[in-house]
């Protein structure tokens, strides 16, 4: 099943995809574009991976890491499908990152990789935007790059684990204004999902709802105000985001 959280007609609803349509928990069918999509999960802890695809690590001129490069985000960073993400006027290079999101299903502590999928609830799509101008070499990537308000679109769906039988062999791609700019496959991750769950759960206890964004392949390009950015993962979802400049973002606040 594909589940969503949406706002519609004055309330927040749980919804699900039924025969290609969006059905609210109360039985109403609504249209994709008449609802406000919220992030499908509300994790307490959000992990994200840097440099987790060999090709991307090469593109950024780093050697592939021998230990996962993990950072964290707060809830301010997440926004839903069809949301608007601000590109600050002083940003020179802001790029998307199409990533498979793994949602944890139950508390996980010292989990062996062989059992790791038992702890997964499902999957979602993330777009982990970065503004490279703000990178600094302390606890890099720093939060000013990776924890900006609304800079991590998530969704549209939480797809049940059972509906994604081969999470390590999914095609990812990003389209900017309809043109494919990034392509990859989850099998090219340096540290795969079972490894990441074993690694993280050896450090700390993971909770139900926690989210792991597993990194992005090569093919990053600068995106501009007005761009429609679609990050898409086979069988998991097609996440649409609209880039806006400061003028449009703050319109009405002048």
């Amino acid at each position, binding site marked *: 099943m594909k589940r969503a959280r949406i706002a519609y007609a004055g309330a927040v609803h749980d919804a699900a995809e039924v025969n290609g349509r969006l059905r609210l928990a109360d039985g109403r069918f609504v249209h994709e574009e008449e609802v406000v999509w919220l992030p499908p999960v509300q994790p*307490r*802890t959000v*992990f994200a991976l840097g440099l987790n695809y060999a090709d991307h690590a090469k593109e950024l001129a780093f050697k592939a890491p021998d230990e996962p*490069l*993990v*950072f*964290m*985000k*707060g*809830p*301010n*960073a997440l926004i839903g499908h069809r949301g608007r993400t601000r590109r600050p006027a002083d940003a020179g290079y802001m790029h998307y990152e199409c990533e498979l999101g793994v949602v944890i299903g139950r508390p996980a*502590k*010292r989990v062996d990789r062989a059992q790791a999928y038992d702890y997964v609830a499902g999957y979602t799509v993330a777009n982990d935007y970065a503004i490279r101008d*703000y990178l*600094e*070499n*302390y*606890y*890099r*990537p*720093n*939060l*000013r790059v990776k*924890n*900006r*308000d609304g800079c991590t679109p998530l969704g549209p769906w939480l797809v049940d684990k059972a509906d994604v039988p081969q999470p390590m062999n999914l095609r990812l791609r990003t389209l900017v204004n309809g043109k494919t700019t990034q392509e990859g496959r989850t099998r090219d991750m340096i540290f795969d999902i079972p490894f990441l769950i074993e690694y*993280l759960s050896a*450090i*700390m*206890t*993971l*909770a139900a709802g926690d989210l792991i964004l597993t990194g992005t392949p090569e093919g990053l390009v600068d995106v501009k105000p007005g761009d429609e950015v679609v990050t898409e993962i086979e069988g998991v979802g097609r996440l649409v985001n609209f880039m806006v400049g400061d003028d449009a973002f703050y319109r009405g606040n002048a």
Partner: protein
Amino acid sequence: MADAFAPNAFAKTRDMRQAAPALVDPRHGTVRFGARTVDVDALDWDVPVDGTVYGTLLNFRGALDSLAEAMNAPPYKEPPKAPILYLKPPNTWIGHGKPIPLPDREDAVEIGAALGVVIGRTASRVKAAEAFDFVRGYTVVNDVCLPHASLFRPPIRQRCRDGFCPIGPWVIERAAVTRPERLTLRVFVDGGLRAENSTAHLVRSIPQLLADVTDFMTLSPGDILHVGTPEQAPLARAGERVRVEIEGVGWIENPVMREAELGAAP
């Protein structure tokens, strides 16, 4: 006749469903909930807030100065410009009196005394001059970490382990702390004073830090932004009891215990 109950704080014990107003008397080590006055150590404490907890790196002048030479060399290349932040996720939070787990194969943990600024109103792009309006109060944060010399990569292994962030016991209301810019922080290990510093030595003051941080990320009610830990953080070993004390705010004490002794579920 009962005294009027004029709370100066709020706190949460494990038998409460949510935090409740409290009157803290730091001199006598007592806390009063309604008509009930009890000794601080007689209660089973939970953490007093439930938002997102952020820490700030290198915000004490001594901590920044100690890195002065390295900052111009790789991997840092230049001194930091924006505030450097990190998260202390919910698995790290523990209440007053609860054990800090020392991982197998580690000798000691670093004890980071930190003033936690508790957010009271949604804070986005706040001006320094108005920043205190967004502050609900203050709490004591013991930002525990494994010693790590390199600050190049995010410190998940070092800072985000279960039980690595005692918080509380209470949040003292902003109005009850008259000079947040001049608070003495102390760390005691087994009763001995190991470190002392003051929020007077912050690189970014509390209002400036709130302005610079909320320029790019919104803080919500119940979030904590801790303003940094002083240089030369003391170490604590298994069996020792650590106390972080902040003048006018409170103190939090926790024993350090071997992870193995604490069982599988911390």
